[in-house]
């Protein structure tokens, strides 16, 4: 790991000022930054430790919305009684992510800044070509081992999968990220690679995430996160789905439905085609399975990741049918 200088910011203004310095990177939980510094991927000149700033870890949950401070730990949010009852998919996405130790370290703001687990991205010594690390250098994954790579939202520059779980639930429920001076939809915060794979987030030097805000809804209250992976726990998603469901008074007509996918796309992936196909329909297995297929419109595989095109819709359908069965 290359050495760096260390600054401890005592408040958010100091963090913003320091974050604007050339080569500065923010340190919250450290689970991404320290890891990537060890891999030789992140080479900060200055590390700005924001983990001691007070007042940024509050979790404020009401029926109308949840506001979660950027420095709240993943574990604390996952175990929060209000989050569990009013936003179950958020809690489930969090406790199924990483390990208990990592969830005690990692913050909600840092979670949004998590980088891809693409093995080529993480190995600069053996794979110098990576458009995320070195724009214009090429993509080692295309033509390489692609079992974990994305099938949706890819480009000729990059096929790296967005690895996180929380953001999938956030995107499903129209959450916003608060950058202090401006707020934007979490969905818009994550950028598809296009020709600029190195830009993953709509955030600028000197901006610091202060909170995320999730609007409350009937669909958020009746929601779940299902994660399918190569081992039962402590693994990234092969495919995952955050789903929320609201039924009419008859108990079987779909009034509102939210669907987002993880593990298959370059960014958290909202599946609006699935939602549109199901709104107003009667909840039935055939209808749900057929509609779930629409999530894969435009999917492009690279051989070894072909299975994700079949798996994604099945995970969505399983989540919707699970919610439908727990009236």
């Amino acid at each position, binding site marked *: 790991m290359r050495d760096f200088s260390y*600054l401890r*910011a*005592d408040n958010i203004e100091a963090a913003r000022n320091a974050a604007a310095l050339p080569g500065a990177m923010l340190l919250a939980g450290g*689970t991404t930054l*320290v890891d990537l*510094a060890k*891999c030789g991927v992140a080479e900060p000149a200055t590390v700005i430790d924001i983990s001691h700033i007070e007042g940024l870890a509050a979790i404020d949950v009401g029926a109308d919305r949840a506001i979660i401070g950027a420095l709240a730990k993943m574990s604390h949010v996952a175990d929060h009684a209000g989050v569990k009852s009013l936003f179950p998919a958020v809690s489930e996405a969090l406790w199924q992510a990483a390990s*208990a130790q990592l969830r005690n370290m990692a913050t909600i703001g840092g979670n949004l800044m998590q980088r891809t687990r693409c093995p080529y991205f993480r190995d600069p010594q053996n794979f110098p070509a990576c458009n995320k690390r070195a724009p214009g250098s090429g993509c080692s994954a295309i033509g390489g081992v692609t079992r974990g790579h994305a099938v949706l939202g890819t480009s000729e520059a990059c096929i790296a999968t967005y690895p996180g779980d929380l953001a999938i639930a956030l995107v499903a429920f129209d959450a916003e990220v608060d950058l202090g001076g401006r707020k934007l939809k979490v969905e818009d915060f994550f950028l598809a690679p296009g020709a600029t794979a190195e830009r993953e987030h709509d955030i600028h030097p000197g901006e610091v995430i202060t909170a995320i805000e999730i609007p409350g809804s009937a669909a958020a209250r009746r929601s779940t996160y299902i994660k399918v992976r190569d081992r039962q726990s402590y693994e990234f998603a092969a495919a995952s789905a955050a789903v929320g469901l609201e039924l009419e008074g008859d108990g079987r007509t779909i009034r509102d439905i939210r669907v987002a996918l993880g593990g298959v796309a370059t960014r958290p992936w909202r599946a609006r085609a699935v939602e549109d196909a199901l709104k107003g329909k009667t909840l039935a297995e055939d209808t749900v399975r057929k509609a779930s297929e629409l999530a894969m419109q435009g999917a492009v595989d690279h051989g070894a990741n072909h299975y994700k095109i079949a798996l994604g819709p099945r995970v969505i359908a399983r989540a919707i049918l699970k919610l439908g069965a727990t009236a």
Partner: protein
Amino acid sequence: MNDQVTTSPTTLSLHLTINGRDHALEIEPRVTLLDALRDRLHLTGTKKGCDQGQCGACTVHVDGERVLACLTLAAQVEGRSITTIEGLADQDGTLNAVQAAFLEQDAFQCGYCTPGQIMSAVACIREGHAGSDEEIREYMAGNLCRCGAYPHIVAAVRQAAQELRS
């Protein structure tokens, strides 16, 4: 300070509170808590397995919560209270209930992952995540054991959790 940031030169002077004792250190900012514990303070009970946050061998407690020492910068935990495996038993040598249960259940083979397993298990029970074998397996998933002693580890955590509840 006016700019409200504490700046650092190449070497940092740190005070870390480990197992209730204050330790003064002069280290580079990039030194992890794991390397500070093992190489500078000679507290070698905390193990270095993968050194990249994937195995749990380096699990310690910071302010009572289990974390990975390999992904924690030493500088970041100045002012926090750190507990390692060396600080778990009582002063008179009486073992923690989890340590005793690991012995009784024969919950290790080579022993390399054991300090991390035990630190993780103590926190797992304290968090209230040891209510069933299934829950123990899920919430202990961050600690790998390449000897495959998992059934005995689950038995030890279950036993310690029952003892600590009664």
